[in-house]
């Protein structure tokens, strides 16, 4: 078990060229992290994992370390007599995690942190996942094959199974493969992205070199995602990258299970915008209808600019 705290150098635990990052500011229960770590531990292609600790207590860090040693999942199996039994499946390997302290974060800041960690540690690509989700055990293997075979492509997104309140509601990132939707099958383009906000950043792998060119640099730190934009941060990011001719494709393999529930509170450290976000009180992370449309519309205007122009909702509404 390899756990490093409060340092960002020497993250490389293996010869892997991919760094996978997760943000955690609380552990609600052990099961919450078990499935995600199980997926990472069982990867057919080894990846290095970093946890961005946004305020875990010592007890929570202990739970995290214990779980990482032997992640497991629970499932049910029917025996010969038709009796349903609960079965625990343990991961074949433990997982080496690095823990890096960070401040309470927004999704765009987490993304930028990971990008900078990848540069500092010489990774070819990085990926971001969320802790409530599950990652397919073959995903990084096939994504890495696609990355090697397609030098000109910068981002490789998985097909994502979208579970809303526990039931499968469809796939995500698949639109670019549909007939007549994008100019080149499997690749996102401006027309498609401007018509639909249909790309999800989770589980995708991002080539560091491709991103660096179009990231704003301030004081030695890169900002590929604009931190001032709320809710539509990744939409603006994808628009800007595709506008700058970075190729982005969906690998036709399901690599990620996205789970979202209606909730009473929303943390902006997550990229998952709940359906009921406008019903959540503003002090609990909710965003009203006007503000939601403001951020989405802003994304469609701001992608022309590489630098973050720090637009603020209140100021805009006063001006308009």
């Amino acid at each position, binding site marked *: 078990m390899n756990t490093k705290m409060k340092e960002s150098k020497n993250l490389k635990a293996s010869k892997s060229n991919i760094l996978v990052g997760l943000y955690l500011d609380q552990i609600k229960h052990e099961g919450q992290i078990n499935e995600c770590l199980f997926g990472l531990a069982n990867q057919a292609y080894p990846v290095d994992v970093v946890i961005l600790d946004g305020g875990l207590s010592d007890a929570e860090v202990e739970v995290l370390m214990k779980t990482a040693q032997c992640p497991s999942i629970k499932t049910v199996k029917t025996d010969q007599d038709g009796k349903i039994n609960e079965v625990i499946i343990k991961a074949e390997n433990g997982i080496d995690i690095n823990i890096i302290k960070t401040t309470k974060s927004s999704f765009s800041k987490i993304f930028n942190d990971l990008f900078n960690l990848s540069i500092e540690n010489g990774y070819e690509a990085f990926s971001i996942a969320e802790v409530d989700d599950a990652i397919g055990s073959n995903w990084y293997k096939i994504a890495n094959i696609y990355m090697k*075979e397609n030098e000109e492509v910068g981002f490789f997104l998985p097909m994502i199974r979208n579970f809303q309140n526990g039931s499968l509601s469809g796939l995500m990132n698949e639109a670019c*493969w549909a*007939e007549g939707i994008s100019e080149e*099958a499997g690749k996102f383009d401006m027309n498609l992205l401007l018509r639909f906000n249909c790309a999800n950043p989770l589980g995708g792998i991002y080539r560091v070199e491709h991103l660096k060119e179009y990231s704003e640099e301030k004081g030695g730190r890169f900002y590929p995602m604009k931190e001032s934009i709320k809710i539509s941060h990744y939409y603006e990011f994808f628009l800007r990258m595709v506008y700058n001719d970075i190729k982005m494709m969906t690998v036709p393999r*399901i690599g990620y299970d996205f789970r979202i529930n209606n909730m009473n509170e929303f943390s902006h450290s997550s990229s998952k915008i709940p359906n009921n976000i406008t019903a959540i009180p503003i002090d609990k992370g909710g965003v009203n209808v006007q503000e939601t449309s403001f951020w989405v519309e802003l994304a469609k205007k701001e992608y022309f600019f590489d630098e973050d122009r720090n637009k603020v909702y209140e100021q805009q509404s006063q001006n308009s």
Partner: protein
Amino acid sequence: MPGLYVKQFKQGINRDIFKVSKKKSDKLPMVAFSASRGPENKLKTYNIIKTFYAFYPHLKWVRFQELEGMDREQFAERLSSCAFYLYTDDIAGFGTAPLEAMACGTHNVGWASFGGKEYMTKENGFWCNNGDIFQTAEILGVAIDKWLNGEMDNDEIQNEYEKTLSRYTVDGEKENIIKLLNEYKDERIKELESFKK
């Protein structure tokens, strides 16, 4: 020998034309099909496609590519770029297309027609009852889900295809037919010699 013309049979699969694409990423999430047995066959095939979309709304983005009006090279190229081949020939005397698909690393889903039973096994394709539209649509969805989940990315499946294909090589076909004709020739010579006596 006068009157004996050895024809090179096309039963063997030409691996110079039908070959697995070098890059994994060249395989697109598409289903190739060729409904070339007349309007009735076309109707049945389109019904499979319609039923498939009705059964699996989450796979509405999966495309179908009709392989029609192409020369052999184009046919092979398109077939090789598709992840699946939907085989809907219910009256085939043999069925070369599924073998060509296997040679291209394209997975077969379709009808186990009478002639194809010579080589169709549960290891080398998703074979359904001949003419069963609903079963084929359902199995096609199952197969695509398996492929999307990465369960068909291993080499074992291609090895199984190669095992099947090893019985249908161009050289093998040539040898077989020459052997067959030689046997026929020897029998005739024997027969003629017996007349002399």
